[in-house]
């Protein structure tokens, strides 16, 4: 079977068992094929090198292996690379991917589908139903591709909120319990107080750098909150070149133009060094900073005040994918369900403090959140999260957006509205390719 770039991508996205069929028609190099889906035997999984995730992963594998002598699971760290995405891309190209990887970025997945690297989990009899039941259909569908296929199992999220240093807020004359910074206007006023009072040299310090993913932690959470969850691209078109996108971009442009956030990256941990009073952060931040200062959390601001229970934010999720090199996909699928069961999700929450992407998180693990009230805000927020859109050329789309955003919003080299328009036009072309 030979395919061109476009027909290959189309086939991979459109054929029900595209990924496994691709493996079957190939020239060797590692398993796959229709028979692999019902085959059982040993499997290998890769985990990120995060200490807590590794600890959970090894315990989960041990628990599984006790009861599955003929279907042993081996856990390994993702090989070192510039990033785990690059290591995975290289592994797909070389045909050396494991059966499952528990660290898949939503943005990177479309390219790996195009490469013929991922298995469509919807092809398992209970694939789509399991994912939608665990995560909730509305949230889960945000992780499916344009044809509704699940190449990702939404695993965990780190909902982005605004973390702040209560001591610095108090020093700046802000009420640390109710800072009143839920609107753009209120947020700007609070930022001015922080900087003018000398409480910190910057009010908030997003990374002002050019990497494609940086917009996930400045523009995108606020855009999702402002629009109630509209993704950057929907129905094949960029959405942000509108009133809402402009409001968010202008808000950040004002932050930079007034010197409330620096235009250069911090050479240190700005939050720990108290060089900034605020930072966009997920639940991982609690363990990092709780011993350093009194830590407060608030939802990301919007143009007009909204009830916190209506705020949607960026999920910053990591997911699980099965790879077409898997020879024992039936075992891999069973292990995937075991590792994302209520019991294992609870163990993962307990070990890492990260939020499993499942419905009724707060009630399911009520005891945990009673014992750890500092995580309750994140748990509540985790039910209203949206990730990056699952679209072709995803990384290029985000780089195109970041380039225009850097130029106009951070460095004020171009007009914000024109920059958003230019980014939208380029993204429309990229998504249509």
């Amino acid at each position, binding site marked *: 079977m030979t395919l061109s770039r476009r027909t290959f991508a189309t086939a991979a996205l459109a054929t029900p068992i595209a990924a496994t069929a691709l493996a079957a028609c190939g020239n060797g190099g590692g398993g796959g094929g229709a028979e692999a889906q019902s085959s059982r035997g040993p499997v290998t999984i890769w985990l990120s090198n995060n200490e807590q995730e590794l600890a959970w992963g090894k315990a989960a594998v041990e628990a599984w292996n006790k009861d599955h002598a003929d279907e042993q699971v081996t856990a390994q760290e993702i090989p070192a690379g510039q990033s785990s995405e690059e290591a995975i*891309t290289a592994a797909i*190209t070389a045909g050396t991917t494991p059966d499952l990887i528990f660290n898949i970025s939503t943005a990177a997945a479309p390219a790996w589908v195009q490469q013929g690297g991922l298995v469509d989990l919807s092809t398992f009899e209970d694939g789509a139903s399991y994912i939608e039941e665990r995560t909730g259909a509305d949230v889960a569908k945000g992780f499916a591709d344009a044809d509704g296929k699940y190449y990702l199992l939404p695993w965990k999220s780190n909902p982005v909120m605004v973390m702040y240093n209560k001591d610095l807020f108090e020093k700046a004359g802000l009420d640390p319990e109710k800072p009143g910074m839920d609107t753009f206007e209120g947020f700007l006023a609070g930022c001015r107080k922080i900087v003018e009072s000398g409480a910190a040299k910057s009010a908030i310090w997003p*990374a002002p750098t050019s990497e494609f993913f940086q917009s996930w932690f400045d523009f995108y959470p606020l855009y999702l909150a402002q629009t109630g969850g509209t993704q950057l691209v929907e129905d094949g078109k960029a959405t942000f070149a509108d009133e809402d996108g402009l409001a968010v971009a202008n808000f950040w442009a004002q932050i930079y133009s007034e010197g409330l956030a620096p235009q250069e990256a911090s050479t240190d941990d700005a939050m720990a060094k108290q060089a900034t009073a605020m930072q966009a952060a997920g639940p991982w931040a609690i363990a990092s900073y709780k011993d350093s200062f009194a830590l407060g959390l608030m939802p990301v601001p919007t143009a007009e005040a909204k009830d916190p229970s209506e705020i949607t934010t960026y999920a910053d999720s990591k997911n699980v994918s099965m790879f077409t090199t898997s020879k024992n996909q039936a075992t891999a699928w069973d292990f995937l369900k075991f590792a994302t069961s209520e019991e294992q999700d609870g163990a993962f929450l307990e070990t890492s403090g990260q939020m499993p992407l499942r419905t009724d998180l707060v009630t399911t693990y009520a005891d945990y959140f009673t014992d750890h009230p500092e995580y309750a805000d994140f748990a509540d927020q985790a039910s209203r999260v949206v990730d990056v859109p699952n679209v072709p050329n995803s990384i290029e789309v985000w780089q195109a957006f970041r*380039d225009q955003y850097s130029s106009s919003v951070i460095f004020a*080299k171009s007009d914000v509205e024109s920059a958003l328009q230019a980014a939208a036009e380029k993204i429309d072309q990229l998504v249509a390719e």
Partner: protein
Amino acid sequence: MSTATTPTPARRPASRSRLPLGGKLGPQPLGLLLAAPYVLFLAAVMAWPLLQAVWISFHDYFFTAPTAVVEHPFVGFENYVTAVTDPQVRQSFVNIAVFLVINVPLTAILSLVLASALNRVVRFASVFRVAFYVPYVTASVSLIGVWMLLFSSDGLVNTILGPLAPDPSWLVNSSLAMPSIALYVTWKQLGFYILLYLAALQNIPKELYESASMDGAGAIARFRHVTVPGVRSVTALVLILAIITGANLFTEPYLLTNGGGPDGASTSPVLLIYQKGIQQTNPDVASAIGVLLVIGIGLLSMLAARAGKED
């Protein structure tokens, strides 16, 4: 002196008679055998990937799993058109030209001047040589961390400059980001080029300096008329190496200016190749940029080699 050349013709027939392939493989066939491992290494690690990159640049290519057989149709110069019509690519070549204009002459001049000075130092000569060489052998990542601290808004350099400090600061200033990188790379690489010049300086006969002194030449005149011509071939090497390493700039814009910032002012072609080829999985366009860069480096290196030739 004349006797040294006479035995050679007599020995050649003898060696040919012992090695039947000697005639076809030149006077020293054993030399080919000894060179073969390195030639094979070069062919496998350098030549083959380069040829593959050229092939990819003329085809519609993307990475796939080995189990998928994918057609890669020939697209002619389409990838090259995509590359040269991309404003980011054009800007990256302008940026690297700015870098080379600052870095290459500065490297050649500073390394020659410092090598000449070191060549005259008698006490602590080894200490000075090591001091200049240390940045070259130190990992760029750790040195970049130090430079970020020095050149950040609140860094030591701006503190010393006070009101004269640039605004925006060095690494986030569109006009100063690339010159800052050029200075950093010059400083980091200097030790290596100083060593090259030191070796060359020690081959200049002392008699030439003595003759020049007797003719009334001062220190500057001796440097200009004895030292500079005496190390001309090494200068050509220094220029070629500085052009090649400079044009392949990646780590510094990736780390020091955080991905080629501000607003692409320090993006280099190799950084773009990385972004487009690896991050965005468009190796075909990335290869086209790579081939254009190789051609550019080749032309510049030829010019440098020509400048270094003896009259």
